[in-house]
C-alpha cells in the first residue's frame, strides 16, 4: 500500500526572487508555510486552545497517540486503526473519553488535550516518564485514572490478567500483591512494600529504570557466570509458585525494554519464554528474533554466543542495558538528546523526497511507540552506540519527527520574538519610558533621541538600560534563528522540495539554533 502523501502546498512559486524587497516577501511566505505545515498536520505541536484543538488534521499524529493511550487505559473500546482518518479519530466518542479521563485525573474537564492533559496521560502510560506520584492522590486515595494505569502496568508486567476496559470499576487492593511479592523476592526495595495502592508501591511499580537496575543486581549476585537470578523466596511461598511468578515478571520486563529500543516485540504480559537454564517451552519467536539481534547486531556479540544468549532471558540482558543507563545517569533529557540532528538529516533513509514522505507516512500511523523509548535512544547514542539510530528505520523516523517538531517550535518562537521587536521598533517611544527616569524616542532607522531626567534614580535608569539591551538581543537571536532555517531552506539543492525540504531544513539546523533558543528563552522569562 502506498504511503499517504503529504498534503499539497504551492511551494515552488512562493519562494523566488533575490532582491531585498522580495526577501521581505519571501520571509513572510516562509512564516505562512510553517503555519500551513502545522494546519495540515505535517508538523504536529500541542494545541494552544480548544479552538485550535478542533483542527483534526493538524493534530492527527498527537490525537492518534492520545486515542491509543485512552484505549490502553480503558476509556475507549479500541485503539485507532492504521487506516482511520484524522476526522475518524477525533470523534465525539474520543472527546467524551478525554473528558472522562480528565475527570478521573482531577484535571480541568474541557474535552481537549493541551499540555496538562497530554503530560498527565504520558506519565500514566509511558515507561520512561516520571509518574509524579503526588498528583495522583487525593486525600490519600488514588485517583481513578491512576488505578487504571496501575492495572495497565501490572498487565504489562505479567501480573494482572488484562488491561483496563470500558467496564473498569476500580482496582482491588490485592491486585498489587503479586508485585509486592516480586519486590520482596527480587529486592526491588530494601523493605516490604505497603499493602494496597500505596504511593510507595506505585512509585516502584512505575520506575522501569529502577526495576532493570535491580534485575541486573539479581543477576550479578547470582554467580560470576551470570546465568541465573537470585531471589529471596518467602518461606510461605512454594518454590514452584515463586519461580513461576518471577519468571513471568522477568520475561515481560525484557519485552518492555526491547520494545522501547525499537524491536518488534509485543507487550502482552504472557509467560512465553525461558529464563536462564529452564526448559524451553512455547518459544516466542518474535522475542527470540529480537534478543538475537540485540546481542548480535547491537552488542556485536559473536553469532554462536548470541544464539545461545537469545534462547533464554539471562541477567546478561539487564546487565548490558544497565551499563548503558549508568553512563548517562545524572544527565537530563535535553543534554542527552544531544546534537545528532545532522546525523539524522544526513541519514540515507531520509535522502530523497520519496524517503522523507515515506517516513512521514510511517510516523502518521504510529502512536504510543512514537513517544516512548526516546530516552533509551539517546542513552545508547551518548554511550557511543550510534548504530541504534540506523538499526531500525523507525528509530530514524522517530528521531526525525522529534527533531523537526522541536525545530519548528524554536523557529515559531523566534518569529514571535522578531515580530515583537519590530512592533517595538515601529513604536516611536520605547516602552517603560517615564518622565521620572528617561524617555527614548527612536525612528525606524534606529536613530534615537534620549532624554534623561536629571533627578532620575540610578536603579531605574539601569533597569531601563537592561530592558533595552534585552530587546536588542531578542531581535538578534530571533533574526539569527530565522536566518539559519530560511537560509538552509533556500540552499538545499539535493532534490528535496515541498514539505520534505521544509522538514529537512528544520532538522539540519537544530544543532545550531538550540543554543540561540536557550538564550532567547532565558531573556524572555
Amino acid at each position, binding site marked *: 500500500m502506498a504511503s499517504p502523501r503529504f498534503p499539497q502546498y504551492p511551494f515552488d512559486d512562493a519562494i523566488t526572487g533575490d*532582491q*531585498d*524587497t522580495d*526577501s*521581505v*516577501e*519571501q*520571509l*513572510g*511566505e*516562509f*512564516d505562512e508555510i510553517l503555519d500551513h505545515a502545522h494546519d495540515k498536520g505535517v508538523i504536529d505541536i500541542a494545541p494552544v486552545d480548544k479552538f485550535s484543538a478542533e483542527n483534526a488534521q493538524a493534530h492527527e499524529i498527537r490525537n492518534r497517540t492520545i486515542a491509543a493511550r485512552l484505549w490502553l487505559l480503558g476509556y475507549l473500546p479500541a485503539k485507532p486503526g492504521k487506516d482511520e482518518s484524522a476526522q475518524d479519530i477525533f470523534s465525539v466518542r474520543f472527546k467524551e473519553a478525554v473528558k472522562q479521563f480528565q475527570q478521573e485525573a482531577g484535571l480541568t474537564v474541557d474535552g481537549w488535550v493541551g499540555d496538562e492533559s497530554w503530560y498527565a496521560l504520558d506519565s500514566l502510560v509511558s515507561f520512561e516518564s516520571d509518574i509524579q506520584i503526588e498528583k495522583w492522590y487525593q486525600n490519600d486515595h488514588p485517583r481513578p485514572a491512576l488505578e487504571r494505569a496501575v492495572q495497565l502496568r501490572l498487565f504489562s508486567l505479567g501480573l494482572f490478567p488484562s488491561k483496563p476496559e470500558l467496564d473498569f470499576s476500580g482496582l482491588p487492593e490485592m491486585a498489587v500483591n503479586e508485585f509486592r511479592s516480586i519486590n520482596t523476592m527480587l529486592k526491588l526495595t530494601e523493605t516490604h512494600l505497603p499493602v494496597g495502592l500505596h504511593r510507595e508501591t506505585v512509585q516502584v511499580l512505575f520506575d522501569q529504570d529502577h526495576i532493570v537496575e535491580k534485575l541486573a543486581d539479581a543477576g550479578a549476585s547470582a554467580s560470576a557466570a551470570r546465568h541465573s537470578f537470585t531471589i529471596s523466596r518467602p518461606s510461605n511461598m512454594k518454590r514452584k509458585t515463586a519461580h513461576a511468578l518471577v519468571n513471568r515478571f522477568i520475561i515481560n520486563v525484557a519485552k518492555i525494554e526491547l520494545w522501547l529500543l525499537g524491536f518488534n516485540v509485543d507487550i502482552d504480559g504472557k509467560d512465553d519464554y525461558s529464563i536462564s537454564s529452564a526448559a524451553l517451552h512455547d518459544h516466542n519467536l518474535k522475542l527470540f528474533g529480537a534478543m538475537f539481534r540485540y546481542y548480535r547486531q547491537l552488542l556485536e556479540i559473536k553469532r554462536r554466543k548470541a544464539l545461545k544468549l537469545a534462547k533464554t532471558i539471562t541477567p546478561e540482558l539487564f546487565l548490558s542495558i544497565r551499563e548503558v543507563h549508568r553512563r548517562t545517569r545524572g544527565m537530563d533529557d535535553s543534554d542527552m538528546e544531544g546534537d545528532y540532528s545532522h546525523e539524522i538529516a544526513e541519514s540515507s533513509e531520509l535522502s530523497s523526497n520519496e524517503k522523507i514522505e515515506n517516513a512521514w507516512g510511517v510516523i502518521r500511523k504510529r502512536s504510543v511507540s512514537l513517544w516512548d523509548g526516546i530516552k533509551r535512544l539517546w542513552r545508547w547514542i551518548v554511550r557511543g552506540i550510534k548504530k541504534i539510530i540506523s538499526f531500525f528505520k523507525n528509530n530514524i523516523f522517530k528521531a526525525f519527527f522529534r527533531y523537526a517538531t522541536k525545530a519548528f517550535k524554536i523557529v515559531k518562537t523566534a*518569529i514571535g520574538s*522578531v*515580530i515583537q*521587536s*519590530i*512592533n517595538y*521598533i*515601529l513604536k516611536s*517611544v520605547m516602552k517603560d*519610558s517615564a*518622565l521620572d527616569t*528617561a*524617555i*527614548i*524616542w*527612536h525612528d*525606524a*532607522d*534606529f*536613530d*534615537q*533621541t*534620549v*532624554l*534623561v*531626567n*536629571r*533627578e*532620575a534614580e*540610578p536603579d531605574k*535608569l*539601569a533597569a*531601563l*538600560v537592561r530592558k*533595552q*539591551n534585552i*530587546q*536588542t538581543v531578542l*531581535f*538578534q537571536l530571533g*533574526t*539569527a534563528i*530565522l*536566518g539559519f532555517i*530560511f*537560509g538552509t531552506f*533556500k*540552499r538545499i539543492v539535493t532534490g528535496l522540495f515541498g514539505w520534505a525540504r521544509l522538514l529537512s531544513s528544520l532538522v539540519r539546523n537544530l544543532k545550531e539554533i538550540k543554543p540561540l533558543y536557550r538564550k532567547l528563552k532565558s531573556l524572555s522569562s
Partner: protein
Amino acid sequence: MALKDALKKLNDAVNDLTSLHVQTFTGTLDLEVPQDGNFDSLKDKLKTAKTKGTVSLVAESLFKFDGDSYNFVTNQADDIPDKAFSVHQSAINSGLETRRSLLNLFKNLINW
C-alpha cells in the same frame, strides 16, 4: 500581526540604514504625563526646551556606513546623572546591533 505584515511595515518605515544618529539630553522638564500615553508630543517640547536651555546635550554620536563617525560628550559631567552615559551607550548599541541583525538576515537571503 503576522511576520509578513510586520516585515512589510518595517520595510516601509525604514528610510536610511546608512547612518545611525543618537542624541542624549538631560534636564528637568516641566511637563505633564500625556493622558493618552503619547510621548511623541513631548518631543516637540524637547525642541523648545533645548532652545531655552532647560535641557542640555550629554552626548551625541553619529555613525556612517562608510566607517566615519562623530562623537560628542559634554564636559559638564557634574550636572549629569549617573548612568546617563550608559543610557547613551545602550542606545548606540541597540541601534547598531538591531540594524546589523536586520542587514544580516537579508544578506543571508540574497546570498544563497
